[in-house]
């Protein structure tokens, strides 16, 4: 038996996911669609938020959603009420979505028929942070009922996101939610991050956020044409 020796290999462990995510991003860009992924802890209100988003964008835009869940199809059923095309990705024991699952789920959808595609990740603030899904924008949701320090507890996922949504603000007073503390926590882990405060249920703050999406799509198409 020879002596052990060290060989350098330098392999990115998530290379396969990154390759698929890059291909997806290119496909989305070519089709001119804006792809938004949503991450949050379980119960932060992702599905209600998404249902309202789909419903309110639809008069003006063609929208669709992919929704990840460990076991049930409840979310897809709820989202189907928006009349938008919705596909469920059941992940089984897997706690996050991966780029290959997005690729499979898209199946025969013609992306040219869409303006916005939403991807709802599994409710989890840890695992999804490592996986690029090819999205144009990653939204992280935290509800006022979860406490102001959520970003400090899960800095990695907040750092991987582009925009934060503070949801359920209709309950802020009841749970004594302190916005300044929350704002400081968010800015500490992700300086300059844009934040929308809203209640999907009551409708408060939705308009500002939908206008933002509108601008993002316009910008994307302007860049694509240039």
């Amino acid at each position, binding site marked *: 038996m020879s002596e052990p020796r060290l060989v350098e290999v330098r392999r990115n462990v998530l290379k396969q996911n990154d390759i698929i995510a890059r291909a997806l991003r290119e496909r989305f860009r070519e089709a001119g669609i804006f792809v938004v992924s949503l991450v949050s802890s379980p119960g932060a209100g992702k599905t209600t938020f998404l249902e309202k988003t789909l419903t309110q964008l639809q008069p003006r835009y063609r929208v669709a959603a992919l929704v990840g869940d460990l076991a049930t199809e409840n979310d897809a059923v709820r989202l189907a009420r928006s009349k938008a095309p919705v596909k469920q990705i059941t992940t089984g024991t897997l706690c996050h979505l991966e780029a290959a699952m997005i690729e499979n789920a898209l199946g025969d959808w013609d992306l040219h028929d869409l303006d916005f595609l939403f991807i709802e990740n599994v409710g989890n603030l840890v695992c999804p942070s490592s996986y690029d899904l090819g999205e144009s924008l990653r939204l992280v949701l935290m509800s006022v009922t979860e406490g102001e320090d959520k970003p400090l507890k899960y800095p*990695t996922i907040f750092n991987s996101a582009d925009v934060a949504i503070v949801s359920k603000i209709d309950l802020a007073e009841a749970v004594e939610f302190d916005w300044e503390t929350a704002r400081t926590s968010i800015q500490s882990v992700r300086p300059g991050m844009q934040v929308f405060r809203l209640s999907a249920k009551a409708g408060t703050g939705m308009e500002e956020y939908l206008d933002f999406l509108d601008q993002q799509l316009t910008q994307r198409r302007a860049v694509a044409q240039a």
Partner: protein
Amino acid sequence: MTRSGPVGSGLELWGGAMHELSIAMSIVDAALEESRQRGVQVSAVHLRLGALSGVVKEALLFSYQMACQDTPLQGSRLIVEDVPVVVFCPQCNEPRTLPSVQSFACPECGAPTRDIRQGKELEVFALEVEEVAP
């Protein structure tokens, strides 16, 4: 998966929902591929793990042993090098190592920054190998 030892308790430690096992399996796959290509036996895998990789080291070390089971890597070691977050401070015009991932501000001058230069690594960077006897 059948295995002696406290598998259940280990998984529960991480809240049941862990992606470290699938990451560990990717690491094992990568090491096996290299070992086949090079015709060597792998005795240890060296991994660079960034503080922003989203992977919990303890859960990964635990999962690695599971992922190695019944493969030629069984009995091999996973050696993890922790990689801290390095940001670029626009005020100091210098790269700075962050003492904590809870504050993306320059540890010297306090300027906030989101210019991340290091800390997302999840990379198999070396293998300890032995030649396979012919």
